[in-house]
């Protein structure tokens, strides 16, 4: 087994939005626009960004709670398969480009029409072939049976502990639902397992027979965590698990997640907007802006030496709870542009103080620099 647990390649997801309140025309809101991620076993990857940057959508796509448009989500990736599929996908992308070009022509000759037809055939053949090759490890092209077997390995902890627990079910049924469905624990064994989980997350055994409304926010989040653990997953996607909680409760939940990670050998994707929290819990952090990852780096390095202009301004906007810290807030100017109609080139250029002409035209690619930061920027400052 190699030590990469999850590999996300070219993930895209767009949502249809109405052009205006009275229009029947729909536009695509590109929530996630070509995201690549890689997670090692036992690692915590933090996903940060402002609201609307697509971090939650990425998390949900990993579980197929949203059906992504394109992309691959490999669980236990096989390098051979990944590279083969990557080539096939790239080929299809090229064919697609040609098809769109032909399609856009105002007048089409007979030859063009024939070419379009054959391109379409090639594309669908290529897609079938690629999906067939990828289907053993790619969550997005698996058949139902295989998907179900793999689904238990990826679980989620949701943001709102008030909305994410079924009010009609008692806690033991909420936690036990997964094991029951998969038949991993039955009868008395299931009861024992639920009790063990309750103890692990720091809830009393009496909690088992009570309803969610009888618990406080922090306790509900503990129930949500116990539910996520019930099928002993390898990966847990934590979507803003502490942002709805008070400071003192937040610390309890963060401590709990860290100790569970060691106990259950878990890998986390930790989505949050609070940079201090993300820095605290993560080994690596990916910064997102308008559906794209703009910088990835080990947590300590990212905070000590941010490279991408967006990361720099994001960090300089965070107040620090220390009176000795200068706390001169230097936020980026203006608001996040609309993802329906993102700026050309590098999407950050209208707010960037290091922009050059090239930034307005060409989308920068993610590249690794000498310090191990992966950044997407044409003109990174300080070096």
């Amino acid at each position: 087994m190699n030590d990469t647990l999850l590999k996300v390649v070219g993930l895209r997801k767009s949502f249809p939005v109405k052009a205006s309140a009275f229009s029947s025309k729909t536009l695509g809101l590109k929530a996630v626009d070509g995201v690549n991620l890689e997670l090692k076993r036992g690692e915590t990857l933090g996903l940060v960004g402002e609201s609307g940057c697509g971090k939650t959508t990425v998390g949900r796509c990993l579980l197929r709670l949203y059906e992504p448009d394109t992309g691959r989500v490999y669980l236990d990736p096989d390098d051979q398969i990944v590279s083969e599929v990557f080539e096939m996908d790239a080929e299809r992308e090229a064919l697609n480009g040609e098809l769109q070009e032909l399609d856009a022509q105002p007048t089409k000759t007979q030859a063009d029409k024939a070419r379009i037809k054959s391109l379409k055939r090639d594309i669908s053949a290529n897609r079938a072939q690629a999906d067939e090759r990828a289907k053993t490890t790619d969550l997005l092209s698996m058949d139902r049976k295989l998907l179900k077997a793999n689904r238990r390995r990826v679980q989620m902890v949701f943001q709102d502990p008030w909305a994410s627990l079924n009010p009609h079910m008692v806690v033991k049924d909420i936690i036990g639902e997964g094991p029951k469905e998969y038949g991993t624990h039955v009868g008395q064994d299931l009861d024992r397992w639920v009790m063990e989980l309750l103890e692990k997350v720091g809830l009393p055994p009496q909690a088992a027979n009570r309803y969610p409304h009888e618990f406080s926010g922090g306790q509900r989040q503990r129930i949500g965590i116990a539910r996520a653990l019930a099928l002993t997953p390898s990966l847990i996607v934590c979507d803003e698990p502490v942002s709805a909680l008070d400071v003192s409760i937040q610390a309890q939940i963060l401590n709990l997640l860290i100790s569970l990670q060691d106990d259950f050998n878990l890998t986390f994707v930790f989505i949050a907007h609070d940079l201090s929290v993300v820095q605290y819990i993560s080994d690596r952090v990916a910064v997102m802006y308008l559906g794209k990852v703009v910088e990835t780096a080990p947590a300590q390095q990212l905070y000590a030496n941010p490279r991408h202009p967006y990361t720099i301004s994001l960090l300089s906007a965070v107040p620090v709870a220390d009176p000795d810290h200068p706390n001169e807030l230097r936020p980026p100017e203006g608001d996040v542009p609309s993802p329906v109609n993102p700026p050309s080139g590098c999407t950050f250029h209208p707010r960037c103080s290091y922009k050059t002409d090239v930034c307005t035209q060409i989308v920068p690619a993610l590249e690794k620099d000498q310090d191990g930061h992966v950044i997407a920027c044409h003109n990174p400052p300080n070096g």
Partner: protein
Amino acid sequence: MSKLLEVKGLKTHFHMHGYTVRAVDGVDFDLNSGETLGIVGESGCGKSQTSMSIMRLVPDPPGKIEAGEVLFKGTDLLKLSDVEMRKVRGNNVSMIFQEPMTSLNPVYSVGYQISEVLMLHRDMTKEEAMKESARLLGLVGMSDPEERVNEYPFQLSGGLRQRAMIAIAMACEPDIMIADEPTTALDVTIQAQILKLMSDLKARTGTSIMFITHDLAVIASFADRVMVMYAGVVVEQSSMRDIFKKPLHPYTQGLLGSIPVLGEVKRNTDGSRRLLNAIAGSLPDHRNFPKGCRFAPRCNKVMSKCWEAEPALVHTEEGHQVRCFLYNDDVQETPAYQEAKAAQGLLRRKRRASAAGETR
């Protein structure tokens, strides 16, 4: 520095069906002119209700200001008539709320909502007020203010709406501006823009600010003095520096231990993960506070007397007050305490009487 606002023994209770919630239960503090006072606490600690009581905006019923004085330049705001109070609100004391969407009226343009204040308190005509509104919007950093005055709240982003709120609050250059979690619903970058704007405005006008938040980091970047609240009472009050460098109350210490600080090392020397110093347990039930110190059930330094009586808020040094038996033995003279004291006295008298009876 002169005292602009003095709050003494403020109590705001909510009388619900069959029980009473003591949201604010005896709060004392001062606000000096030109000062920024940060009020920190978790949800339900009474920080918002304190500010609502100062503005007399507590919904009545079920809420009721039971006791206390709110002296603004010597006059008690709680004794003013509704008409007189209306002259104070927005003119001398104004407020910025947390949710810029719900606190702006969706059917009036932003400019109208600003000029409303000006027409009421400054006797401006509508045209003058609209012109002044545009100037104010420019002052809070909105681009093309002349056009923005005619826009409606839904046309503005969260950050811009909050700027409009600040423009309304600043319109009459009040002496005190109460900001109730003004940046909580905003992204960090927008939060930083708003904080910067508020400190710029403060430098220009010399307004005192009461800044209510749950975020200690925001306090560190913004406040001069800090008041920490827990379960309806002030537990500690001091300069901003002292709260972070020399916190006295176990709750303040716990709060500071609970937040991860940006840039701090998170591994111990042996490579294991460093856990946060979280406070155990959760907030006490509002209907039924513990008999003694309200923090006793969660406190890691709890002593036997903490369960019996509530400590008083006492000065430990210049400008530093704390409500904890670790530093002082003074007891808060609550009615319950006085009752208990009286009962004890009665008991003692009874015992003495019966002892006297026996000897006779």
